[in-house]
């Protein structure tokens, strides 16, 4: 049985649609992996890549500008990460830029973040090595946290010991807080001071009336009155001057 022209056309359109989708998908995937278009390469070495994988994004000022091309171990402590970047961002990436390994959100993939260290500087060359900032190892953080926890344990044990002694009324602070004798002694001392000062003021009043010291207190009183009179005169003079100046201005 022969195929009709209509069948042939429809089959052709169908086949072209399928092939177009395949080519389109290949192109889109290739584009996202920087397989088409101009690119340049740089690399960096890391002590710990933290699960970074080939194909992960490279980000510069928050924009995806490339991908991780390859990762290989070059020594017992370092891995080399080759990056492929879009050529259009080449003029912005300087030789003093720093690459670090970041994460795309809490659950996201690992990625390389390139950050410019400062303004100016020469452009990075094709195939050049970029400075890297190694990610903090979770093991190190845990070890530090363990040391902090040990110290905290010692401190809290000491504090607990002090608190026990204080609450038991031992030591200066404990006796101060929990011993009533000290409070009673302090109360007696304050009462004695009050009595002493009252007696002292009575003695002073009696001295003022004594004929040996009466002259001294009268001279003192006179000098005080003289000072007050001089002060009053100065104030009056000042007032008169101000009034005369005010009248001149009005004229």
């Amino acid at each position, binding site marked *: *049985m*022969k195929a009709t022209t209509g069948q042939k056309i*429809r089959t052709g359109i*169908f086949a072209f649609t*399928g092939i177009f989708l395949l080519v389109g*998908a*290949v192109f889109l*995937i290739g584009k996202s992996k920087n397989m088409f278009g101009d690119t340049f390469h740089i690399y960096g070495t890391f002590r710990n890549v933290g699960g970074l994988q080939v194909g992960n994004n490279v980000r510069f000022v928050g924009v995806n500008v490339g991908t991780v091309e390859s990762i290989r171990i070059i020594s017992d402590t370092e891995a080399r990460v080759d990056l492929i970047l879009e050529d259009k961002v080449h003029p912005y990436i300087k030789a003093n830029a720093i690459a670090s390994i970041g994460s795309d959100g809490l*659950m996201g993939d690992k990625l390389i973040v390139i950050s410019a260290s400062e303004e100016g500087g020469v452009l990075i060359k094709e195939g050049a090595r970029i400075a890297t900032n190694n990610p903090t190892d979770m093991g190190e953080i845990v070890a530090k946290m363990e040391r902090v926890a040990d110290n905290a344990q010692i401190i809290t044990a000491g504090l607990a010991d002090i608190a026990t002694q204080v609450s038991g009324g031992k030591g200066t602070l404990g006796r101060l807080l929990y011993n009533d004798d000290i409070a009673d002694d302090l109360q007696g001392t304050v009462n004695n001071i009050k009595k002493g000062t009252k007696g002292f003021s009575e003695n002073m009043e009696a001295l003022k009336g004594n004929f040996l010291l009466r002259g001294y207190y009268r001279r003192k009183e006179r000098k005080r009155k003289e000072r007050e009179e001089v002060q009053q005169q100065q104030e009056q003079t000042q007032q008169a001057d101000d009034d005369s100046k005010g009248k001149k201005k009005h004229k």
Partner: protein
Amino acid sequence: MADASTFPLKSIFEEAGNQVIFMGRFFRNLFRWNFEWEEFIRQCYMIGYRSLPLVAITGFIIGFVITLQSEPTMKAFGAESFIPKMVAISLIREICPVVIALICAGKISSGIGAELGSMQVSEQIDAMEVSGSNPVQYLVVTRILACIIMVPLLTLIADAVGFAGSYAGLNLSQRVSPILFFNKAFNSVEFGDLLPAFFKTIFFGFAIGFIGCYKGYNSNRGTESVGIAANSAVVNASLWIIVIDGIAVQLTNALGY
């Protein structure tokens, strides 16, 4: 019949041997000069174009449903932005190839089995042999080749329509621009996702066409054998698809994709 029930292993090997012989006939006739282009294009139309509505609707609903089903769980983890990525990878890698292949097994393999079975019953295939034309080249090669080419294309179309369904599903609960959705979807897909799945569908297409042709071509002369041929074609093709899928997953894992 008694032999078959007494020695089921023997009948299994006999069936396997017949299938290998039939496959050999297919490959021998594949490279003969006078290829039946007209019949091949007609089969492409029947197998590919005529299956398009079924495949498109299936693909759209698969994308739509996967998005709706996964959305609450992803939302609970605060990972809604991963839905396009998850849907794209699951559709391209596994769901669309297998589901579309199973649907094609139901539609195409049974159709081929019934068509060739009825031709066998009505002795048309014998008549072709007697008249000097090559029934394998005319009936079998064209159908299997059409399946090999059309099933991958149908799967690609289902992938694309599935993306549209997923986008529609996501937009029921939130506003996502199509550019953002397709950017997220395609940025996460790699050649390691697309190409193994594409090559897998070629083998699915071969299984669908080959089993349909084998069951139809080798059916008995009784009237009921048409139904049996169609039925066993669907069952065997579906089984083959699942087995090929299992092998393909192991292969792609072994190759590091």
